[in-house]
């Protein structure tokens, strides 16, 4: 069922920019269209590009914010979230907790 929904109407998660749009809904309470426009502007792509895995996979690699196809040396978890927080200008709870744990701000 999850896969069928994802194919029919989902944004695609880290295959595309679905996780980034979701971040804006969660962090700022933005409605779906506002969240898409915000992310598209930050990434300098069109709203349609946000759910295109070819465009987004390449862009995600360039930005090193994690992608579904993992290559050696690329961001895969908290490292990607540090960059996403900065890219989208939002606070991510787990990033903040990580900084608290190591006792310093990374950027």
């Amino acid at each position, binding site marked *: 069922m999850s896969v069928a929904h994802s194919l*029919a109407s989902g944004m695609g*998660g880290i295959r595309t920019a679905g996780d980034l749009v979701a*971040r804006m809904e*969660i962090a700022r309470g933005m409605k*779906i269209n506002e969240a898409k426009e915000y992310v598209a502007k930050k990434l300098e792509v069109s709203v*349609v590009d946000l759910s295109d895995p070819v465009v987004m996979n390449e862009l995600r690699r360039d930005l090193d914010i994690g992608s579904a196809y993992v290559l050696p040396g690329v961001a895969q978890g908290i490292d990607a979230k540090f960059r996403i927080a900065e890219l989208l200008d939002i606070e*991510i709870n787990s990033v903040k907790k990580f900084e608290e744990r190591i006792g310093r701000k990374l950027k």
Partner: protein
Amino acid sequence: MGKIRTRLGDGSVIELSESELRSDLESGTQEAAERGKIPPLSQDELRYLAELFKRPDRTVGVDVGKEVVLSYDCGPLKIKRSYGTASKFQSLQILERLFGADTLEMAHVDYSYKPARQLLWMDQPIMEQALLVTIPAMFYGAMPNLGLYTQPDGPCTNPMELLPQGKIAEARASFEEMVEHAVNDMVLVASTMYEAGADGINFDTTGAAGDGDFLAALRATEVLRQKYPDICIEMGMAGEFVFGMHGALTYDGVRLAGLYPHEQLKLAEKAGVSIFGPAVNTNTDSSCPRDVARSSTFIKACVKNSNILIHGNVGMGVGGMPMQDVLPVDSVTRASKAMVEITGLDGL
């Protein structure tokens, strides 16, 4: 045109003529409109649904650019309950990297806040470590599940045993006590997971045990919103109508029993919910087109009246989906597309 192949709400295949299809769509939206005292779908929207169900395609999807964010209940349980041999970490990574999940949700297999409280010492480190190796926003989710607070497993006398004895006041007092226990557990678990780094909390299947269940989730939300102003709180409902198991419980002066989704939404907003998940029941004797028209009518009314995000429940037996464990993709994708394109919601 020949017969249109579709399904009943129980998942079995049926065939409808074009006039039967139109009649089912009309009756679905009219029933929702009458029950909820909300506007029915327009003739254009009903024509859109008719075209959607007439298509012979096995699967359908939204137009490019109209995709929405997907949030999930039960996260790792979806794999666990199929006896997939994956840990919670592995399940979350499967959802993230293979399923294209826009958000993730960590959960314990019992999926209720009462047992989750007992396992916090084990689940908190899992949450902390999962947050290090995943990218999408992570929720912790479980159900208020008031039923777990009754004897012999819980501390309260079972109201369902008191009611047949005519002990109405005692039964109501027991419900009220259950609410207090549930609020304490929900606040403790949610606080622990948020302080471990979770992005949000999901109160899922809210209202499953009636008005007390809904009240517990509203009160827990209120406490958490005050404690953590930035926390994302998702409240997914159990059904379209809040059962009056207690009957006289209120929140902010509004009686909870009998509220429909657009009315539940207003109280959720007031309590501090960030994402509201309306649930509209599937009628297993109705056709899927009728169930989809009925669900879309209720959810459209929520979207129209909402100041917060709406992620409609479109799972087994709700949101126009058949009541089946293993769902057919023709029904799932039609309900999915219709819900997004008719109601304009923010996610599923």
